[in-house]
């Protein structure tokens, strides 16, 4: 999805100046502009809202989300980080740990290992884990590793991997211990660490680690280890408007598609003030022109505003409702699955809110009927 700079309504822009930014908040609501309604309209909303994937990888996706309010876009981001449930190790039972890593540190490390378990298959964590842990809400893993000398090592070897067996303990050493009906339910996709090569601890001969771990389902707000993403974030689509040179630098400046440069060097300087690929230099009839080619690529360092020679030629901005979203999965979900789950959470939140709001309204209406006979009477405090 691309655009021509002139296509964007200037009301949709956040303005970037040399030292500060302005117009950060949306004005797209009633009562801002005289003689304009601007109330929210489903048809209109449907027409403008767009979602387009830029790329999809196992652990990372990027997509454009256009036409929604900042608060909604931000809510998605916040939900992804802290409210999409995953399964992580919550309790560790240490039978033996003679490694240099202390029990609680080891437990903390284990907790942070992302587990590839579909959280939809588990119930929420039990309130009282001692009595209520079942095969429906708890996954059990075990780790039993002992380091030993390796036989037949050539003398003079110093690499611990060659000298010893199990000198490093990795996430792949975690063994799933199926409970109850789990064995059949999870048979197709057995629970495991999302990344088998996470280093847990290092051992030396005669040291061993023997533990049992219980993993439960929870959300990132409870502990970061339950967050399904390293991070989820968006940036706003950069907007670069070329202006007719010589015009006063203000709202009325005339917009142009290309700028004529004095020579190739100046064109290069113009090009270098943006990120790579943003500006295109073209030679037409012996003259050098610059054009905005791919504003999306710009990092918005605002360097162009510091170059005196280009004063008044460029206006920088960002499109307020054009979110370039990135979601980086830590491995519990494929990155592409996270956003829909977040939408689900969002929806259920709205349902709750809606139900509560309606309840409130009913109560209000009910109480109004009660109170209506004599509104001036003193209200008794409960």
């Amino acid at each position, binding site marked *: 999805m691309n655009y021509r700079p002139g296509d964007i309504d200037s009301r949709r822009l956040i303005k970037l100046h040399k030292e500060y930014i302005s117009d*950060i908040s949306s004005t797209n609501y009633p009562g801002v502009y005289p003689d304009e309604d601007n109330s929210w309209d489903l048809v209109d909303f449907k027409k403008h809202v767009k979602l387009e994937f830029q790329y999809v990888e196992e652990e990372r996706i990027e997509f454009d989300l256009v036409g929604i309010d900042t608060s909604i876009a931000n809510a998605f981001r916040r939900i992804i980080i802290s409210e999409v449930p995953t399964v992580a190790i919550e309790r560790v039972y240490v039978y033996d740990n003679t490694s*240099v890593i202390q029990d609680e540190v080891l437990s903390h490390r284990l907790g942070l290992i992302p587990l590839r378990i579909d959280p939809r298959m588990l119930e929420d964590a039990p309130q009282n884990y001692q009595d209520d842990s079942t095969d429906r809400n708890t996954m059990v893993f075990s780790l039993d590793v002992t380091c030993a000398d390796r036989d037949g090592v050539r003398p003079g070897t110093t690499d611990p991997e060659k000298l010893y067996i199990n000198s490093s303990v990795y996430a792949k050493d975690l063994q799933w211990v199926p409970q109850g009906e789990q064995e059949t339910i999870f048979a197709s996709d057995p629970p495991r660490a999302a990344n088998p090569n996470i280093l847990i601890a290092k051992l030396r001969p005669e040291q061993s680690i023997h533990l049992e771990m219980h993993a439960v389902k929870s959300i990132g707000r409870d502990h970061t280890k339950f967050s399904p993403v390293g991070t989820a974030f968006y940036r706003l689509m950069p907007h670069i408007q070329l202006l007719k040179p010589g015009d006063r630098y203000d709202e009325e400046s005339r917009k142009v598609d290309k700028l004529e440069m004095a020579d190739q060097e100046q064109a290069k300087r113009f090009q270098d003030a943006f990120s790579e690929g943003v500006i295109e230099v073209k030679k037409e009839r012996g003259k050098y022109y610059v054009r905005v080619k791919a504003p999306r690529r710009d990092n918005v360092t605002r360097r162009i505003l510091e170059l005196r020679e280009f004063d008044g030629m460029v206006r920088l901005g960002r499109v307020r409702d054009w979110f370039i979203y990135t979601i980086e999965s830590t491995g519990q979900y494929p990155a592409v699955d996270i956003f829909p789950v977040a939408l689900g959470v969002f929806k259920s939140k709205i349902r709750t809110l809606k139900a509560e709001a309606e309840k409130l309204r009913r109560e209000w209406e009910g109480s109004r009927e009660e109170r209506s006979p004599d509104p001036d009477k003193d209200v008794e405090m409960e």
Partner: protein
Amino acid sequence: MDDGNEDWTNLARPYRGLRPSDPIKSVEDKWLLLPAFLKVKGLVKQHIDSFNYFVDYDLRAIMEANCKVTSDVDPRFHFLFTDIRVGTPVSEQADFANQRQPITPHQCRLRDATYSAPLMVDIEYIRDNKRIQRKDVVIGRIPIMLRSNKCVLAGANESQLAVMNECPLDPGGYFVVKGTEKVILVQEQLSKNRIIVEIDSAKSIISASVTSSTHSGLKSKTYVNMRKGLIVLKHNSFSEDIPIVIALKALGVQSDKEILLLCAGNTESYQEAFSPNLEESSRAGVYTIQQAREWLGARVRSMRRMVGPRRPNWEEGLECLVMIVLTHVPVVNMDLSAKAIYVATMTRRVLMAHEDPKLVDDRDYVGNKRLELAGQLLALLFEDLFKAYVSELKKAFDKVLGKPARTSAFDPHTTMLLHGNPITQGFIRAISTGNWSLKRFRMERAGVTHVLSRLSYISALGMMTRISSQFEKTRKVSGPRALQPSQWGMLCPSDTPEGEACGLVKNLALMTHITTDVEEKPLVKIITLLGVEDIQLSTGSEIYGPTSFVVHLNGLIIGLTRFPSRFVAQFRKLRRAGRINEFVGIYINHHHKTVNIASDGGRICRPLIIVERMQPKVTNEHIQMLKLGKLAFEDFLHQGLVEYVDVNEENDSHIALYEKDIEPSTTHLEIEPFTILGAVAGLIPYPHHNQSPRNTYQCAMGKQAIGAIAYNQLNRIDTLLYLLVYPQQPMVKTKTIELVGYDKLPAGQNATVAIMSYSGYDIEDALILNRASIERGYGRCQVFRKNTAIIRKYPNGTYDRLVAPSKVGTEEKLPKRYEILDDDGLARPGERVDPDDVYVNKQSPKDTVTNSLTVNPAQVEYRPTPLTYKTKVAGYIDRVMITDTDNDQALVKVLIRQTRIPELGDKFSSRHGQKGVVGLIVPQEDMPFNDQGICPDSIMNPHGFPSRMTVGKMIELLAGKAGVLRGTLEYGTAFGGSKVEDMSKILIEHGFSYSGKDMLTSGITGEPLEAGPRAILTRQPTEGRSRDGGLRLGEMERDCLVGYGATQLLLERLMISSDQFQVHACQTCGLMGYNGWCPYCKSSKKMAQLTIPYAAKLLFQELISMNVVPRLIMDDAA
């Protein structure tokens, strides 16, 4: 055009001996000499060297001075110490095979033992008229300094050290006494045997004083004072001040003329000032030597120790002059002339100061200071202990010899063996209490030793380089506390505590060395060979002749030379050739017309590259050889490329900081500028960009940083140990960090920091932490606490015992508080201890007094004396150790561990003296993030910057960010380091703003973050914290920027970042219009747009409203 030509000729003329065309030769990587130096000298080498010197030389010298034991009873009794030596550290008790096992320092730490080695003497005595020699008789044990040449760690490689549970990065230089690590701090003192001239303006006294100190330990202070024109000699052993002429007469100078010449020379003004003193002696009726000694003898304070007839006064006076006054000046065959010349020299210095008050000495000058190290202090202690031991021995011998009938032949050896352990106990007591109370030497010092601070690796290291002053802490004087220019390169200018000890406690710079004594005799020989005339053959007129310079050796007057520069040059040549010890210093004092040679211990010195004929002697080839390991630091010394220079010599040299600064008169070149800082200040990145007090604060704070302490940190059982779970080496490091090994034992973590205001919980230096960072392990640390129980044996044969917890009544389960105990009555390692839990179930006998030999052990009644966990927060049993102490009692140590995560109120700090407490912990989704999705680990309020001026921190942030993006570690070494320009380039290459600024999006609203609020009227940032205000850049700050000429910064601060405003003004009428229209001229023809502060626009309008017309006259309107 003429001017232009002038410039050209000026340029072509050699400037400072250099033409512009001359290439500037620089020695690449000459800083590599620094690691080479540290390899041989190390940061704590001065401690170790001094201890080695004590063990190898001083010990024997002290023994030799006290080697004979005589008897008052039997004059034929003969007993002699013939040799003394220190063995290797072995256990105190012999094992079953009667073998003493070698011990390691770590064993001693764990067992609360003393890391010591036997002190052995060879003795010779007569028994049955036969001469008997015995070798290796142990007379006591001496604590051994870690890594000294008697220590088992000396010369051990990393794997050997690992076997001994010792950290290879541990510097050593301390003692382990009764399980605690003790450091003997370096003590700073005024140098001995040197004349110091001072003026007491309050009492109008000019005084020259000298503290004499000799190897026999006698110390006394002699003054020559001038008051109201009268000069007197003052000493404790005289009941009144002695007029100088009488003193000199008593010292054997009879003639008044000679006295005048010796003191005043031929200088008329000095003679005039001195002459009243001649009258003084005749007024007292003293004309001859004999009379003077009589006069003096009558005024000697009697401190008679022996009974006997009182000797005549003259004899008394003479003895006092020979034995007590100016003891450091040797008297050979009752020839007092050397002392006479010394007193005369002191008198002359007083006269000089009288004439020109500038010629006084500075007590605070580092060249007048000597540092006393562990070796010297131990030598004093040993001398005292040994003398006491010998006199006790003598008493014991006399006692046996005095018995009328002895059954067997008297063998002093057996008496010795029965003599207890006074030397061992003396050493242990002194080092563990820090009280050096040596009556014999009138020494009473407390706080000489300190427990080695193991808060962090750097705190331990910092302690080893610390120097404490003998100066009174409570006195509020600035002089001794001030930064001395002569401190340059020797003592760290930044590292000193705040508060009462400020400036009194100092730290050594990175490349300093402290000298040990060098023998004087060969030096005297060399001095004579170099053509110095004997002083005693000269009279006053020669000594103070126009061309003659007096040669001093360690404060003693040796002779005269008429060619001081040549003499000094030749002397230095010999030293550079290795014929004279490299630590002997020489310099010319032109004011006093003296050449001073110093070979005494305790001088601070540092190595410098020698420059001859404008060429540094160290070349790139040498450095190449050094890199290849073909040359070591010693080779540079021996080849005369580098030499040690002490403070006095440094101030007589011309030292270039860089190669480009070399001039014809340059004598030396600095090895590396950042060595003026010490080990602790060297950890600060870009300290040369910071306001200096910030560096000082950081020096104090860096020591509190939690991190890794030593490689053996998990094997140690310390009273309190703080460790960071995930320490990281800094992204921006310094060369010092690498040199001291701080990158291997770091204390701290690299954090992504946003400098912005957030939530209001960040005022007053509070900072905001990201909860996700904390939950991922940021700032997580551990506390280990030691708990000790001693299983005592009582004199009545009973003893404490450890018992398994018993079940109460018929209950199946143990009470909760006994749950973690094992069958041996000790808690199992790994168990969690909750408050009130018992972790050592000890019981003690109820009766420890009654002799229970008759009591059946089974019937002893016990009461419980358990160790219970008192802390409110649960911990874990980390380790339990059972061992026995030196005095054979069982010792149980339980190490309890807590893991702590950052919480509100915890202190965090950068490396620039900027500390703050956690004010708020924010979930990740509320944290701001940038276009790359990066969100900060912590947020710091920008108000921390303006008043503190820690520009170094800003550069560190920039270099750190650049390093992260490029994947390299950057350097913030003082006076060097990664350049801001390069860092900015890296940032640009990676698509970031060159200034390190980022556009952030609020995690709460999801909107981009805007700058703070503005006042409505002036459109300037609001004032005051309550209104979210900015910090005012006031007049004085503005003046500062004006002074710098930083116009762009001024413009930015005062207008662009404040209340920049675009106005349209008419060039015709000079009034402001709007939208390109001048309402006054009714025209849009000559309108110009200009940027002014909104406040200025407001002022114009206010003036207009009062009928004052301000007109804008524009020069170059575009």
